[in-house]
């Protein structure tokens, strides 16, 4: 640290600071005196424990940050590229969009998304009739768009005569033959407990036309499978046990409640098809997003360094402490982002950078108060104690309003707005810890161990500015 240089500028001597210290023991209360007499005593004070804890936390944070494998940074679509789209289900003449229909719609969308092979897709119901889909890093967005917006189509397939079992993973083209039976003839599909055993089964009911067709299909396929496909994907291929002529069929097998429910939902999606209209689409190529991130990260580092320099220049020793706290803050917050995980978007990064500026505010408040108390002639320790104590209500109230704003943004926002609110809120909470608890422990430890540092000069206060003891 630039300790000696500071001395020369201010022109004060260590003796001066000792005068202040001596003043302390005479005028200050017990809480302050406690800090005074401990420098040589074996120190297992809560403060030491806290410092060790902070150090461990920081090391933990560094570990989390460097381990991209286990704790990957999750980037938003605007950064890593990908497609965000919102599909809206529309009523048809025969089908109204109900929560049950939406369940099927989502099952259909999930089915199709799985077919695109995208890792960790996000599929969420949004509002009453919308589905939000996010496909990160998708290679062929156009194909996915075409696929996802289609109306669900359920078809029944049989094997050519003579073939008993569907060939497993044959390289050649599928032997399955499409029948004329389709989802529009299926009037009901529901999961129910299997009356003959402990498991579950799916009960199907066809309309008159479907019953007739299914009767014919089942009659000529006894002992052989009939495949059911939703869109292009096979969802079930039960083996026909005997001709089913009444229009009611059961699919049984090794179903539990969940898998039976899923299949029933998929079947219903084909039975009650509703058109899916794309109402929002945001597709970003990864190159574009990365340019922006590089720019904002560079801007963030510049901003961080400027703040660090300013704090050091203006508040001297406590400024250094604030800077260390700020570094701890940045590391902790970034580690939290990776652990939660928070999806980092461009505005989210901007929110994080902004929170660095806000995190310093608590320290500015405390140190301004400390300086003020020093100028009033209080001892260093008393001034610091009062600085932290008095500033706390202001810090608490002001940060509460910021958190309130974050909560409101989170509730009413979507996507990017939410990301921003979440990053800012995490930042505010973490800053309360680092700016108040961490910087206090650091400052006290520095002053306890380094006697030469106990001068108001290091707090940006000229000795001539202080009031002599009355």
């Amino acid at each position, binding site marked *: 640290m630039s300790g000696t240089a500071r001395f020369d500028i201010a022109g004060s001597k260590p003796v001066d600071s000792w005068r202040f210290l001596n003043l302390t023991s005479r005028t200050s209360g017990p809480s302050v005196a406690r800090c005074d007499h401990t420098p040589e005593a074996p120190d297992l004070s809560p403060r030491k424990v806290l410092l060790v804890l902070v150090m461990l936390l920081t090391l933990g944070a560094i570990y989390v940050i460097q381990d991209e494998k286990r704790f990957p940074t999750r980037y938003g679509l605007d950064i890593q590229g990908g497609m965000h789209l919102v599909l809206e289900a529309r009523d048809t003449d025969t089908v109204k969009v109900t929560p049950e229909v939406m369940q099927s719609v989502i099952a259909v969308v999930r089915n199709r998304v799985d077919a695109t092979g995208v890792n960790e897709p996000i599929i969420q119901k949004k509002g009453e009739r919308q589905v939000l889909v996010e496909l990160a890093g998708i290679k062929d967005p156009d194909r996915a768009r075409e696929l996802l917006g289609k109306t669900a189509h359920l078809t029944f397939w049989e094997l050519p005569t003579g073939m008993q079992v569907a060939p497993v993973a044959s390289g050649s083209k599928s032997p399955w033959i499409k029948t004329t039976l389709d989802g529009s003839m299926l009037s009901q599909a529901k999961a129910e407990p299997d009356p003959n055993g402990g498991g579950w089964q799916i009960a199907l009911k066809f309309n008159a036309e479907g019953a007739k067709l299914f009767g014919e299909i089942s009659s000529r396929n006894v002992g052989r499978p009939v495949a059911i496909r939703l869109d292009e994907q096979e969802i079930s291929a039960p083996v026909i046990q005997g001709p089913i002529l009444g229009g009611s069929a059961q699919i049984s097998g090794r179903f539990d409640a969940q898998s039976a429910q899923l299949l029933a939902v998929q079947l219903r999606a084909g039975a009650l098809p509703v058109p899916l209209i794309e109402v*929002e689409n945001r*597709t970003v190529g990864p190159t574009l997003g990365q340019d922006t991130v590089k720019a904002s990260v560079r801007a963030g580092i510049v901003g961080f360094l400027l703040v660090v320099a300013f704090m050091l220049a203006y508040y001297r020793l406590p400024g250094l402490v604030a800077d260390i706290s700020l570094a701890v803050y940045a590391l902790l917050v970034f580690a939290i982002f990776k652990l939660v995980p928070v999806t980092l978007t461009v505005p989210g990064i901007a929110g994080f950078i902004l929170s660095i500026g806000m995190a310093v505010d608590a320290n500015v408040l405390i140190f301004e108060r400390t300086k003020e108390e020093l100028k009033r002639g209080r001892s260093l320790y008393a001034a610091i104690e009062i600085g932290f104590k008095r500033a706390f209500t202001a810090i608490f109230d002001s940060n509460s*309003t910021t958190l309130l704003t974050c909560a409101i943004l989170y509730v*009413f926002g979507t996507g990017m707005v939410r990301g921003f609110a979440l990053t800012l809120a995490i930042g505010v909470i973490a800053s309360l810890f680092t700016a108040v608890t961490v910087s206090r422990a650091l400052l006290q430890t520095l002053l306890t161990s380094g006697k030469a540092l106990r001068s108001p000069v290091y707090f940006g206060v000229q000795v001539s500015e202080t009031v002599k003891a009355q």
Partner: protein
Amino acid sequence: MTETTAPVPGGSSPIDVMGRKALWFGISIAYLVPCLIAIALCFAKFGAPVKLGIDFTGGTLMEVTFDRGVNVENVREVFEKRDIPPHVMASQDARTFSIRTPFIEKSVSLEIKRDLREVSSFAETRFRLESVGPTIGRELLRNAAYALGFGILGILLYITFRYQFDFALSAIIAMVHDGVIMIGTFSLLSLLGGAEADGLLVVALLTIMGFSVHDTIVIFDRFRENLTQAKKGDTFGDVANRSVNQTFARSINTSLTLVLTLLPLVLFGGPTIFHFTFVMLVGVISGTYSSIFNASPILVLIRERNRRNGTTPQAPAPAQA
């Protein structure tokens, strides 16, 4: 230095915040008037206080960087032959195009992309599409209005609970002042540079409104403390003046650290977040000013009026957190 003098950096005499209310309000008005004019002009021109982007109005924006320079007319033609009016912006080297149109539905949008490929090749990674249906835009606008409304209400309740109603009212007036200045500044950008508001503007507005109140509360917290220690003969204005001066250095320094983080974002953050960060920068400066020079004088005005009307002012409940 005595207790009543302020730690103003470099200055020895305190700023007479309460005595020169007219000057401080005048400065605010001097900036508010052009803002309001800009907002009015925007209303006349775009039907909204700022030019609304596709996030709010619905529409489609395509951004593409071709592998080589192409003729603007060829790009325009792709849209015009389908009777879609494109608003095209091209980069200097005629490779990067940004095309804004009314909402284009999916099948047409896919066809257009295929046609653009025929104009010239481009990498999939250099294509950006933003397509927002009109219903989504209305939803966003409604949510933004809710967020603003609940934000103001929540803050009003919080300060009333922690302080008093007139504290809350003064803080909210200062906050609305900052909101108008930010919107007005954006209106100016809309009028001069065609800036379009997106969801991020709402974020910027709410964040800065939160910051503005945050900043005001720090000063009010000092009010609260000083009111309990007020000497006999101190008027509310005296206490207010002392409080503002005592917190002055902090207000300036905090806003300075925010400016230090925002300025690089504005300068080097890239075009995607330029308007977002710029409006926040303006908001930080306005928020700091309004906390010192608007919120506190307004509170003093309210208190002085109440006293004339015979209502006794009370000190807010002692602080506890």
